[in-house]
């Protein structure tokens, strides 16, 4: 079944115009599509003209590809090449395999299974029409064909079975049950992004609705692919990115199957291809915690062109930066669950979860934007995990992670898309330790000041009573209380030790110094020379009063 593919890369560049790099993949059975890999413009280009250039470029760049088996005759091959040449990314249908596993009494006979396959294919056709080139098969290797088995599938296993040259999307479907009760489950596998969706499943009580349910599950599992077109900064200094949906020009028969809608979230991937063999993937780079939020979708001129805002803790260039033989793609993904789990770990020790770290969910588009509602406060659990629920009004928001008085990280997040994410954070333990020590020293400072005031007040009272001995004793106690030098010395010791530890852990010490300096400032405020002089005068007066009153009594 595997068809040969031909990749042709062509770049069209011009002064002040779009730079287009299109890859055209051709598959057997006329399954082919074109890729645009380089941005046509940087911030300046008009979107429609860039899209037009992209389409044009793709057309021009399309190279003949041997898509058919070598045994096919030249005429057939030539015809396929022609078809491949004509297909641009915006017009390119997805090559889709639907592999259906059966289990249970309901599908004991091959006839019943065949019938079901036909019905499912019809259901999918009703949804996607020409957007999909569908192949549907009965799955012979997934035994038992049920949701549990689907759950256990691994990307590695599927990659070996379904190389990207054959199909772009593989839907693994299981239909299990009896006449009275059925269970349908589905999972999409994207061969280009090497990623599976979570299992979607549904229980039924009417066997007649199986095919339609399968269709719905396939539709909900489907993640359209979009390709980078261009980027620019908008008035609010957001990085805007335009992404073109594959086959965007092809209208789907069913409105519910439209690929991209405003409010959708895209997850970017960079595919770096081998230099000598441009159709062979060298490196696939996902961008966790990086999203593109769809703000609008062109439905008239460049259908399927999504205007998005790039949201990431990384520099936009990490994804959008230029690169030869680089494909910049994104998956449109909608929440499959009500919540996701985010795990906080140390950057240099991913096995160590960051437990009980405070998080705030800030509902804003860009991290500098105004927050739409009050923040949600969360704390990571014993595994370093935080469960974040989907917010219908905010497909994306920002997670802020705090450590003591400092902001440790700020990352965007779109919950519900994938069940589990990891946020790697720097080691803040040294700074946090200093914060604790400073806090204790502050308490000590408060105690010292309080005790001083108490002793002076008591000494004044005793002086009025002429109790010279008691006054002397109280003033001696006063003199023993820690003063400015002690606190400055202590904070210096804390700083020195912390800087040494920071050096050994190879972390910065600027924040440590700032903390210590801040405390020194407090000490200076409490122990000014002026206050000291006043206090000395007060002590002299107390002593004098005590002596005088004592003499008067005698």
């Amino acid at each position, binding site marked *: 079944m595997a068809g040969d593919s031909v990749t042709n890369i062509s770049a069209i560049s011009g002064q002040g115009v779009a730079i287009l790099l299109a890859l055209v993949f051709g598959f057997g059975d006329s399954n082919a599509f074109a890729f645009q890999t380089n941005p046509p413009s940087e911030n300046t280009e008009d979107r429609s003209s860039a899209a037009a250039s992209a389409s044009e470029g793709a057309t021009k760049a399309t190279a003949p590809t041997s898509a058919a088996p070598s045994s096919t005759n030249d005429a057939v091959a030539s015809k396929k090449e022609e078809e491949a040449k004509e297909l641009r990314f915006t017009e390119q249908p997805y090559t889709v395999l639907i592999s259906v596993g059966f289990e249970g009494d309901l599908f004991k006979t091959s006839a019943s299974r065949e019938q079901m396959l036909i019905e499912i294919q019809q259901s999918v056709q009703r949804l996607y029409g020409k957007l999909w080139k569908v192949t549907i098969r009965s799955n012979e290797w997934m035994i038992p064909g049920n949701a549990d088995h689907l759950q256990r599938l691994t990307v590695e296993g599927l990659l070996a079975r379904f190389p990207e040259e054959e199909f772009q999307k593989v839907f693994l479907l299981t239909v299990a049950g009896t006449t009275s009760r059925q269970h349908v489950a589905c999972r999409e596998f994207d061969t280009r992004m090497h990623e599976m969706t979570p299992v979607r499943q549904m229980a039924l009580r009417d066997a007649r609705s199986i095919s339609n349910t399968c269709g719905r599950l396939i539709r909900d599992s489907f993640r359209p692919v979009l390709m980078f077109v261009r980027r620019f900064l908008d008035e609010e200094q957001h990085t805007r990115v335009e992404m073109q949906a594959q086959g965007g020009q092809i209208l789907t028969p069913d409105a519910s199957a439209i690929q991209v809608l405003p409010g959708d979230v895209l997850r970017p991937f960079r595919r770096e291809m081998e230099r000598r063999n441009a159709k062979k993937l060298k490196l696939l780079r996902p961008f966790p915690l990086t999203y593109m939020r769809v703000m609008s979708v062109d439905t008239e001129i460049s259908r399927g062109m999504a205007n998005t805002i790039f949201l990431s803790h990384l520099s936009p260039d990490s994804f959008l930066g230029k690169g030869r033989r680089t494909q910049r793609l994104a998956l449109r993904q909608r929440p499959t669950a009500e919540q996701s789990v985010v795990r906080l770990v140390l950057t240099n020790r991913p*096995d*160590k*979860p960051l*437990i*009980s*770290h*405070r998080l705030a969910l800030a509902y804003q588009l860009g991290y500098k934007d105004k927050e739409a509602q009050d923040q949600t406060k969360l*704390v*990571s*659990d*014993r*595994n370093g995990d935080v469960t974040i629920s989907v917010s219908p009004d905010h497909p994306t928001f920002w997670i802020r992670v*705090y*450590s*003591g008085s400092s902001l440790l990280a700020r990352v965007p997040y779109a919950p519900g898309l994938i069940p589990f994410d990891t946020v790697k954070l720097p080691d803040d*333990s040294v700074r*946090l*330790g200093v*914060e*604790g020590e400073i*806090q*204790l020293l502050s*308490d*000590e400072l*408060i*105690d010292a000041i*309080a*005790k001083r*005031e*108490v002793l002076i007040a*008591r000494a004044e009272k005793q002086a009025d009573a002429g109790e010279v001995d008691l006054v002397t004793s109280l003033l001696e106690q006063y003199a023993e209380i820690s003063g400015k030098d002690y606190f400055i010395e202590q904070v210096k010791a804390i700083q020195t030790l912390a800087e040494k530890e920071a050096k050994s852990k190879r972390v910065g010490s600027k924040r440590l110094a700032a903390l210590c300096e801040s405390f020194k400032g407090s000490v200076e405020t409490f122990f000014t020379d002026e206050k000291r002089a006043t206090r000395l005068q007060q002590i002299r007066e107390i002593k004098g009063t005590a002596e005088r009153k004592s003499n008067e009594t005698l």
Partner: protein
Amino acid sequence: MCDTVLSKAFWKSSLAIILLTTCGLSLLDAEKLHAQDRATAEPSLPKYEDMQLPSARVLKNEDSVDWIVLTDGRVLVTTPVYPRPNTLKTIQDELRTLEKATGGNAAQRRARTERRKRLRNLTVVLPSDVSTDLYLPVSQIDQVILHEDLCLRRVDQLLEADEITQAYELLLHVEQELPGWDNSQPSFEKLLATEARLKVKNNDDSAAMAILDELAGRNIDNPDLREILAGIVDRRVADAASDKRFDSARYNLSRLTRHFPQDAVAEKWKTRLKNRSDELLRQARELFDQKKYRDAALVAQEADFVWKTSGSARAVYTELVARYQFLRVPVGGFGDVETVFPISSRDQRRDSQLTSVPLFEAAAADELTYFQSSFFEDWDPTDLGREVVFSVRQTRPYWQSQPLLTANQIADSLSIRLDSSLPTFDARLASFVKEFAVRSPTELQVVFNRVPLNLEAMFRFPVTTLERGDDPDAGPQSKLLSTRFVPAAKSDRSRTYLRSVDEPDGLLRTQYHVAELIEKKYEDRESEVRAFSKGELDVLPHLRPWEIDIFKYSGSFSVQKYRLPQTHVLTFNPKSEAVTNPQLRRALSFGVDREGLLKKVILRDAEMQHGRPAKAPWNSRSYANSPLVQPPKYDLYLSFLLKLAAQEKLRVPGRLEFVAAAKKRIEDAGEEWKPDVFRRENAAAITKSVSHITLPRLRFVVEDDPVAMLAAEKMVERWKALKFDIELIPGGQPGKPLADDEWDVMYRVTRMEEPLLDLWPLMLTDEQLDVSRLETYPDWMRQELINLDYATSFPDARGKLFQIHRHMSAQAFIVPLWELDDYIAFQRSVAGFESQPLSVYQSVEKWQVIP
């Protein structure tokens, strides 16, 4: 009347003497006296038979006089004569001695002669003329009746009239005058016998018996003693036997046999009770032969209760009670009774120790605590500690009371602790365990994400499983598999637990152990101690600090010190906003006079032998103690100031609000906003605007421990004096446990086995290790607590604990109060207990109760 007669006699005699002395005559001999009497004096001296015995009041209160009865029957009333008592006898004895004496020089012979002359006359002084000595020839004196004799005569008369009190007072008067005088002893005995009779008459047998004991001590041959005592005992024993109060019967009999071992009444009852006891013992033997060991032991105990077995009967009794042993323990409350205390109470912890066997149990402690397992043979770590294979024991000693378990059952128990969806989830364990596998029915392999520093301490949980109950709507219930004793019966005042696996037949008598444990609740401590002293209880689990020395030096009991002392601490509700301010917590800490309370209230000992101020929630010998930390000090001034500081902090938002509102007003009016000027000029107004904000009322819940409660009450008094608003909630009240929003401060009594793992549950009052409870803690403290689990070595862990200890003390996250040595007292009949136990029921299945 009597007084009048006496006065007349005095008058007459005095008149005669006056006349004699005024004529310049001396009473040289009786003849002369009589002649003078006859010649010059009328009226004459009274006759003895006319003399009236003075009243008790006169005898006690007026000047003492003696009666000298002359040979002619007349009586001369004089002031006390000497020598006394036994005046005439003493004179006669001395005279005889002098007459027998021979030899010596002339002076000595002359002195003897002079002395003999003087002894022939008795010097008397008349009450009417105390300045003149008169000499009365001894030969003319028939008898001398001393004042004390008069008193005793009056006592006899009073006793005949049942005037006990007056008689006693008069006797005391005599005793005061002539201590230990032989003549007064019969009167004392008569007094006691009369009083005993009166007590019996008034149905006060106990008092009567006590008096008779006194009488027996004075004179066992007193003729009234046996009769009265036997009468009382006979009646009391009969009553007690009919009410089946055989201990009372035996006791009463012992009161009689103590003085009269062969008394007929005693013999009668001994025979009756012994026969009854023998019959019961025979029945017990029959039950034993039918393998009804519990019934046999109970009947045998009854037999021994009726009459103490001895000889061969004793051997039978011992065999029967050794086969099925009962242990009776007094408790303050029961583990199955819910109280308002927010966490598991002392009773619940004790109940848990008794009913469940954890995989690992603390066995010994010094700086560290050492654990042992009765389920695993080996648990050697491999892969640098990341993997452990537990070998499950396939056999168990006959005395162990828990069932044998398989690796599968233990794995099931582990799995339900790792499943976060179940109530049995153990977050800490789950964070450590990566995977586990049952390699065989006797081998369980556990792989860890990271190396646990104290594997045994982490596996201190019993083996449980989840089972669905009868109610289909209810979720699965946890069922204990590793049982030690199982609850068998309950009443308002007791709970009974049985050994979950019986000991086999055919062992030697000395090999059997406790089969049934009965926890009993008493009205008060006094009742507990009394019952223990009477042998109705076998163990007294926790001695009060002031009782320790009494029990230790009584010599009647085995008093053992618990290996780890009890530490009393204050913890704070991590979910309560009221105690998030460290200054408030520190103010409370500084306001506790630890030494004062220890000396006066808790230990009642100025030397503080059995307690000391604590500086940590763990014991003072623990490896976790930082050398830099000292026990918190008592400083009332600082406490008060910190409380004010905490209050001021509460007022800050109010002040800011006030200033912000003013700023808005001024800016709206188009004027320039000068914050410094505004604050300076409106300082009083700003202060007034927040004056209504005060510290919230603190709800202080105290563990159900009598010593803790005593101390807590005193602490609250002191805090109230410092103007804290505090409400004391006794934790032992029945009811639903207080929720997080219903308490702020908790007084806990703890005995921390492993600080590394036990600190979290103590500090956060949380057994689920829920990190959300750390929310009110500063981040640095949170991370310090969490990083304890990530310690890579023992020194690393200790360093982390040192740091936590220092920080915890400085910010008063936990306020250590005092550490009290804890003692447990056993009857001598109890054996097999640990010499320094770590808990009340440590190795209880090995205890023996053999009389």
